[in-house]
């Protein structure tokens, strides 16, 4: 059980920030996990004795399992942890890690840390915003320093880090994933 728990944890982190463990390990959730998501969330809550203090841990788990936090999911969590629903939404919306809407098929995270900014990352965001508007398969996000300042400007495309990105190479990557 430890093993796949670990795998989904990595998968969940892959979209944001960390470029590291992802390239090789990011796989769709195993069927065994997908079918048992409700049970797994329940288990995570019981591990914390349904304590309200564990709200952020539980939200992390829910997002790992379902990809985003739907109102129904938040309602369930609020009931189980005996927290007011408004507090659960308040916490979930405070932290940028939690997504309240489903993500696109692909994600592009542009690092806007100082080193990347100085190297022209803003131009990359413009390209992405122009090409990936509403209805696009690609979710565009920005991150505050992914710690790969030596590779500036950096973009994480579906968990894989692209180093020293130019507008042209970014365009090519977008063409590739369609």
């Amino acid at each position, binding site marked *: 059980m430890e093993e796949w728990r670990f795998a989904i944890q990595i998968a969940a982190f892959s979209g944001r920030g960390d470029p590291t463990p992802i390239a090789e390990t990011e796989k769709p959730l195993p069927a065994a996990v997908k079918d048992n998501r409700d049970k797994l969330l329940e288990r995570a809550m019981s591990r914390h004795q349904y304590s309200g203090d564990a709200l952020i841990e539980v939200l992390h788990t829910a997002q790992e399992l379902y990809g985003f936090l739907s109102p129904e999911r*938040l309602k369930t969590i609020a009931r189980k942890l005996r927290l*007011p629903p*408004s*507090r659960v939404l308040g916490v979930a919306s*405070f932290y940028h890690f939690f997504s309240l809407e489903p993500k696109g098929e692909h994600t592009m995270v542009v690092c806007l840390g100082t080193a990347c900014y100085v190297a022209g990352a803003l131009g990359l965001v413009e390209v992405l915003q122009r090409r990936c508007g509403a209805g696009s398969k690609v979710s565009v996000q920005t991150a505050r320093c992914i710690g790969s300042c030596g590779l500036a400007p950096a973009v994480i495309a579906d968990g894989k880090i692209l180093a020293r990105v130019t507008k042209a190479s970014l365009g090519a990557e977008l063409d590739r994933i369609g």
Partner: protein
Amino acid sequence: MSVKTLEIDGKMLTGVAGETIFSVAWNKGIRIPRLCHIGGISDVGACRLCLVEIEGQKKLQASCLTPVEEGMVVHTDTPKLRAHRRLIVELLFAERNHICSVCVMNGDCELQELATELGIDHVRVRYQFPSLPVDLTHERFGLDHNRCILCTRCIRVCDEVEGAHTWDMLGRGTNSRVISDLGEPWGASDSCTSCGKCVQVCPTGALFAKGKAVGEMRKDRTFLKYIVTAREKKQWIE
């Protein structure tokens, strides 16, 4: 209970240990400005209007959260504090859409009162003009986000006094917004008891009882016609 003697604005005052500078000052008629504080619920020190200067301390302190100490020398109304307060209130006016002339609270608004006190006749920073909704789904009350100053009094009173915790804050920074339950319309809230405490503590017109708004004023001028006609035709009720 030990008694602490201190000086506020040149007056020698006494307070009980644990009492805040704010409460000692107000009890003696020294009105320190405030927007997030209201007696009866916990303090958060968020509006920064009640900041005071304490001699010997480099930083300004929120008087609503600072307990009195023996020998303290406090100044509540210095030119520096007035300048800061003025700018804070200007920031509030520019942050959302505060139009006193069409507001239900015109004349009884704590924000308006403060602006008058501080002599604010214009705002020097740019208005943000955010586009914000008004929630009129509740049977008796309304919530106008345009007038909300995010003081969180409603959230605290609902949680601490009513015990319902209907309200909380969504998002963060300048995008913060007061929400009921899971961001649903107020009228659809399961937890709201319609007690109206939040409406009473709201310092501005953000939370209001329905029927009091300017736009809700309707005068019935048709009555005159009936009376005049009745007189002319002598249609008396016998």
